[in-house]
């Protein structure tokens, strides 16, 4: 292990001993994210600046060791889990924020927690729109890496719609800026491909994010249905009627019951499904849109409609939605949370089939669905200590993927590909498509120093058309 001790000595020499860890316990703690995959970490670094990040990249490169970046570790797809022994860059000490209220923007370092940013800008009447369920813990850097969503990205778009520029360290340890505070930066949209690239193209050390004005009026309502198809028809009906709510979430009966069991919020436990809808904007517009949503629900047989009368009630309704994960613990010690997308008009088919898959594999399934944008999150609950159960969960998960693709959907809506879905990429992309993605990755990081083995399956770069670039092109 002399080689490793040299690496660690070099890292400590550059960052100081309080910024580098390599004890077995640390290495074990940082070897996985919130998902199910585990990898091997040789050293964990906590740089404080872009310069220190660049130094870590340089030292790791000199020791031929790949680099994996991690924020709070709330990711579910293994995007922060090394596929081979790697140096970890943890961004949690990079927490600077510089708000530019006049331009409704902020420069944010990657370790800033999502919710902290919105809390900080709240006195200015502004917030950061992406709001993943993990927003109290997840970092902006992680949001940028995964192009994170959340319930409110239905109307506001995912993280990429809110990132104007990124500063990043490339594989050579150089610092670059892509994008800027003005509209339509010139040249190719490097910023756009950096967002959602899961740490494979560079290390983002700062992002310029857009801040969204808080809506002057919000109305939140919960609607219960005796049949999940009625809830889905309401979703389609609302969108087709020309209303894009701020959020449009669906929960099914098993999930409602689990949540109600520990939240005691008076949720309709006999409903087959509930919709949680929120409309936001100008008070006059909000009133009309809320009326339309409620009328649509009643038209489709809603058995109960509850409109939050105040902020406290609104918070209870949202707590019900965002507690979904914790509630599952009552059913089984482990769960596997899925993330796929179907066109929003195919929701009923998708959910019906997911129930059939769960039944076939004898697994309890609970559904939270970002119904407004067709983003499915079935959760299979299981006890991992029972022999053979993990294989059944894996099989069920693969069937959910196959189903989503059959309905015209994709592998992931907001959690990312990571290690989890890397080998499923061929289900949605041809060999030529994957080769093009691999070429893009090579343009940024030819030697695969960043997060090797994640996102793209091995052998993606399988084509050689035999043409050489013209003289003068640096490749």
């Amino acid at each position: 292990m002399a080689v490793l001790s040299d690496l660690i000595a070099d890292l400590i020499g550059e960052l100081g001993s309080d910024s580098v860890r390599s004890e077995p316990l640390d290495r074990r703690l940082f070897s996985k994210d919130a998902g199910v995959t585990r990898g091997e970490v040789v050293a964990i670094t906590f740089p404080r600046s872009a310069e220190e990040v660049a130094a870590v990249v340089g030292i790791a490169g000199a020791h031929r060791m790949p680099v994996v970046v991690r924020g709070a570790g709330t990711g579910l797809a293994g995007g922060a889990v090394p596929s081979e022994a790697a140096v970890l860059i943890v961004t949690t000490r990079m927490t600077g924020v510089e708000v530019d209220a006049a331009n409704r923007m902020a420069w944010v370092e990657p370790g800033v927690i999502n919710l902290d940013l919105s809390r900080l800008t709240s006195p200015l009447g502004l917030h950061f729109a992406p709001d993943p369920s993990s927003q109290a813990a997840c970092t902006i850097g992680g949001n940028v890496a995964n192009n994170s969503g959340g319930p409110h990205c239905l109307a506001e778009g995912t993280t990429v719609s809110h990132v104007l520029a990124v500063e990043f360290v490339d594989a050579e340890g150089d610092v670059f800026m892509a994008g800027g505070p003005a509209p339509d930066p010139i040249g190719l949209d490097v910023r756009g491909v950096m967002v959602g690239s899961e740490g494979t193209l560079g290390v983002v050390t700062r992002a310029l994010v857009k801040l969204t004005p808080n809506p002057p009026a919000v109305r939140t309502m919960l609607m219960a249905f005796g049949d999940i198809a009625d809830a889905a028809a309401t979703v389609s009906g609302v969108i087709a009627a020309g209303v894009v709510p701020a959020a449009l979430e669906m929960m099914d009966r098993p999930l409602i019951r689990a949540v109600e069991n520990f939240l005691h919020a008076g949720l309709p436990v006999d409903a087959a499904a509930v919709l949680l809808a929120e409309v936001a904007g100008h008070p006059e517009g909000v009133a009309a849109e809320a009326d339309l949503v409620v009328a649509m629900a009643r038209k489709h047989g809603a058995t109960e409609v509850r409109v939050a009368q105040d902020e406290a009630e609104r918070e209870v309704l949202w707590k019900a939605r965002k507690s979904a994960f914790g509630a599952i613990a009552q059913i089984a010690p482990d769960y596997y949370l899925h993330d796929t997308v179907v066109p929003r008009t195919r929701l009923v088919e998708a959910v019906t089939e997911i129930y059939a898959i769960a039944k076939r594999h004898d697994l309890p399934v609970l559904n939270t669905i970002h119904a407004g944008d067709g983003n499915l999150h079935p959760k299979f609950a299981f006890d991992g200590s029972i022999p053979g159960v993990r294989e059944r969960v894996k099989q069920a998960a693969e069937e959910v993927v196959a189903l989503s693709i059959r309905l015209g959907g994709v592998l992931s809506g907001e959690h990312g590909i990571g290690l989890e879905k890397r080998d499923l990429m061929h289900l949605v992309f041809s060999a030529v498509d994957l080769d093009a993605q691999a070429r893009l990755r090579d343009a940024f990081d030819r030697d695969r120093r960043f997060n090797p083995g994640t996102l793209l399956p091995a052998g993606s770069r399988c084509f050689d058309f035999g043409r050489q670039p013209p003289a003068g092109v640096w490749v």
Partner: protein
Amino acid sequence: LTSLRSTVARLFGESADPVEGAPAADYVLAPRTVEESARILDFASEHGLAVLVWGGGTHQGLGNPLEPDLLLLTSRMDRIVDWQPDDLTVVVEPGVPVATLEARLDERSQTAVLPERPGAATVGGVVAAGVSGWRRYRYGSTRERVLEVLVATGDGRVVRGGAQVVKNVTGYDFPRLITGSLGSLGLIGRLCLKLWPKGEAAATVRVNDPREAVDIAYRPLAVLETATGCFAYLAGTEREVAAQGAALGGRVQEGLLWPEHPIGDVVVSVRVPPASTIEAVRRLGEPVSFVAAHGVGEVTAAFGPVQPTALEALRTWAESMGGAMVMLAAPDGFALDPWGVPPQTLDLQRRVKAGFDPAGVMAPGRLPGGL
């Protein structure tokens, strides 16, 4: 050349008619499919023919001038392939005129939020040029709505990126990369756009202070300033539009009365942080006409005969603010770079382009820094 000409004719049919306003080219072809486009581009790469893709010709003034050997027209790829009103998505071929698509979508009171005064612009052209309409203040730029692209690359592969769903993190974001790439990576053969419902009512309100309008109005479609004054553009329910109009306090006219695009010898797009829009207007000097998008930071201005040096100070200032001044139109030989200082990631962008277009035949030199 004669033998190459006969080979092209044998493989891809006779040349299409020349297009008004387009630069002269040895070959003019109008493929019907993305696969046919890919075969042509494979041939172009093999023989080192410089290719310019041409839609409506509306935004061809952008970027360094080209002398193409081959002009590829998208005019025969002009189908609206699949419109899903309940899903708010539409799949189109690149040659569909913006006006045709928006008229069709209007039947269900939907919009792709493409430029409001498109002229002859095609959907493929607008996406390739990365141009947005004025409603971007409310709905974001065109790039935000490109969900899927099918591209014939410079070396003749057909590559798909994205999907026909509104939320997707499956693989690198090719739709965003292709948007605004000005035909330098390949030909966009098909694309899927996200749509928005139009409000039931719309109005244009005259305002005195654009900054105040940006502060008072909750998410107007746009706040525009021209030589004739400042206007806020509203959409939503009847009552919302009426209430917002009353709050703004100016004269309210029904409907959206969009300005004309500035036209002149020299047309520039000044891009600065949103709060600097007023300062950008002040620094224009004596334009023939201009449209300033407050809250966005984009000012388009047309000038009569003007010396390049007169615009240099404006560009230097815009760049010092983190923005740019881009030439949209200029007379031949106008001694001012169309883009200004190239981006810091130019070498990286070269490598990205080489991944799509290894022989460098797609719109060579058109992008900033001669990329």
